[in-house]
C-alpha cells in the first residue's frame, strides 16, 4: 500500500467518527443537563471508571460469557439450520414453534430459564444463546434453501459423499448468508450480554452500567455505553478478519467476475 492510499483509507475509516465525536463534544460542551453531561466529563471519568480493576472484574467475565454463548449459538444455529433448510418436512413442522420462541423477548424468557438453569453463569450464557441463535439459524435455513439446484443435481450425479457434499456444497454455498447471520448474531449477543446481566448478576459490563444508572452516576453510565460501543468495534474488526478468511473463495470469485 502506498502512502497516499493508506492515508486515504485512514481518512475514510476515521473521518466520519471524528466529525460525529466533534459534533457531540461541541453540542454538549456547556451542558448543565444532568442526564446529558458534557462529553469532556464523560471521557474524564472513563479511565477512573474502567481501568482500575474493572477490566478483570467486569469486562473479562462479560466477554467470556459472550464468547461461550455466541459460539454455542453459532454451532446450534448452523447445525439446526442445515437440517431444517434441507428437510422440508422438518421445516414445516418446526417453523411455527421456532417463531413462537423467537417472538418471546429475553427479559420474559429469563425467569423461565432460571427455573431450569439456576442463576449462575450457565443461565446467562443460555440467555445469550437464546437470542443469538435466531439470525444464524434463519440465515442458514435461507442459505441452504437457496442453494443452486444445478449444483445440487450435479453433486448428486457425481455421487458426492454426504460428508463432502455437506462441507463443499451446502456449508460453502450457504456461507455468505451464514456469515451475514453470524454478523448480526454478534451485535445481538452484545445486547443480550447486557440483558443477561440485568438478572442475578454480580459482575459484568452490563451489570455495572445498570448500577451506575440506578445510582444516578450518569457520566459513568455514559462511559459504559461508550465502552460497549468500543467492544462492538473490536469484535466487529475481529469478525471481519475471520469473515474475509472464510469467504475468500467468494470475494475472489466476485473479483474474478469483476475483472473478467
Amino acid at each position, binding site marked *: 500500500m502506498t502512502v497516499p492510499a493508506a492515508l486515504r483509507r485512514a481518512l*475514510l*475509516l476515521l*473521518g*466520519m*467518527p471524528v466529525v*460525529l465525536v466533534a459534533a457531540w463534544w461541541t453540542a454538549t460542551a456547556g451542558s448543565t443537563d444532568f*442526564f446529558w453531561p458534557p462529553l469532556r466529563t464523560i471521557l474524564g471519568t472513563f479511565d477512573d471508571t474502567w481501568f482500575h480493576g474493572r477490566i478483570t472484574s467486569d469486562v473479562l467475565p462479560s466477554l467470556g460469557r459472550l464468547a461461550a454463548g455466541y459460539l454455542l449459538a453459532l454451532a446450534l444455529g448452523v447445525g439446526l439450520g442445515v437440517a431444517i433448510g434441507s428437510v*422440508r*418436512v422438518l421445516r*414445516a*413442522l*418446526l*417453523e*411455527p*414453534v421456532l*417463531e*413462537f420462541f*423467537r*417472538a*418471546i*423477548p*429475553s427479559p*420474559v424468557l429469563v425467569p423461565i430459564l432460571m*427455573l431450569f438453569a439456576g442463576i449462575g453463569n450457565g443461565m446467562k450464557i443460555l440467555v445469550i444463546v437464546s437470542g443469538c441463535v435466531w439470525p444464524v439459524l*434463519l*440465515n442458514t435455513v*435461507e442459505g441452504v*434453501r*437457496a*442453494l443452486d*439446484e*444445478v*449444483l*445440487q*443435481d450435479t453433486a448428486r450425479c457425481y455421487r458426492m459423499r454426504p460428508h463432502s457434499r455437506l462441507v463443499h456444497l451446502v456449508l460453502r*454455498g450457504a456461507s*455468505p*448468508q451464514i456469515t*451475514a447471520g453470524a*454478523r*448480526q448474531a*454478534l*451485535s445481538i449477543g452484545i*445486547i443480550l450480554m*447486557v*440483558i443477561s446481566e440485568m438478572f442475578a448478576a454480580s459482575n459484568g459490563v*452490563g451489570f455495572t452500567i445498570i448500577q451506575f*444508572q440506578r445510582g444516578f452516576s450518569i457520566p459513568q453510565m455514559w462511559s459504559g*455505553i461508550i465502552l*460497549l*460501543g468500543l*467492544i*462492538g*468495534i473490536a*469484535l*466487529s474488526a475481529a469478525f471481519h478478519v475471520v469473515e474475509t478468511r472464510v469467504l475468500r*473463495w*467468494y470475494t475472489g*470469485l466476485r473479483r474474478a467476475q*469483476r475483472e473478467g
Partner: protein
Amino acid sequence: MTAAVTADAVGDGRGGRRHRTAPGWLLGLAGLAGLMALAEAVPRAGLVKERFLPPFSDMVSALADEAGTGAFWRALLETLRGWAIGLAVATAAGVVLGVVIGGLPPVRAAMASTIEFLRPIPSVALIPLAVLLYGTTMRATLLLVVYASFWQVLVQVLYGVRDVDPVARETARSYRFRTLTQVRTVLWPTALPYVMTGFRLAAAVALILEITGELVIGSPGLGKQIAVAQSSGAVASMYALVIVVGLIGVVVNVIVRAVERRVLRWHPSVRREVVS
C-alpha cells in the same frame, strides 16, 4: 462454484421432485401441538413446581379470563400499533440508507466504522434516554423499536447490495442505464432476498423490543400487562400473556412469509417450495 444467491444463477433447472406429504400448515400445527403437550407434561411430571411454571391447561384458562377483559384487547392493539409503526419506519429508513450507503463504495467505506460503533449499543442502554425524551409513553418504546430493527434491515441490505453480480452491474453501466434504473433492475432484484430476510428479522426484533420496552419502561401494551402480572405474582396470567406474545410472533411470520412468497416468486428458494 458459483454464488448462492444471485439472480442469474436461477437457470432453468426444474429440480424439485414432487412428493406428497402433509401440507405445511398442518405440520406446523402438529409442531405447536407437540409444544403444548410438552408444556402440559413438564409441570405435571414434577420436573418444575406447578406454582412456578403452571401446566399448559392452567395457562389457557388464565388466557380465557384475560380475553374477557377490555384491558387485554386494548393492550393487544397498543402493542400491534407500536410494532407496526416502528417496523415501517425502520424498514423504510434501513432500505433507503442501505441502498445509498451500499451502492456508493466511498460512502460505505466512510460510514462503516460509525455503523460498527452505533450498532452494538444495546437498545436497553437507551432506555434512560428514551424516558428522558418521551416519558413512559408509547413514543419512548417506539424509539427503542426503530433503533433496534433498523440495523437488522440496514445490515441485510448492505450484504445484499454487495452480492450484486459485478457482470450484471458492469453491463448495466456500459449500457448507460440511469442510476434509478440500475437500482431497480440490477441492484434491487439481487438485494431483495436479503431485504426480505432483514424484514423478517426486523419484524421479530421489533416485536421483541416493543414488548421489552413496555415491560421495562411501562408504556402501555401487552408487555406492561406481563409486568403487572409478574409483580402481582399471577404466574398463570403471566404465562398466558407470554403465549399471546409468542402467537403474535407466529402470525407475524406467517404474514411476512406470504409477502415474501409473492415478492420473490421468481427466486429459487421460493420456486422450489411452490413446485414441490
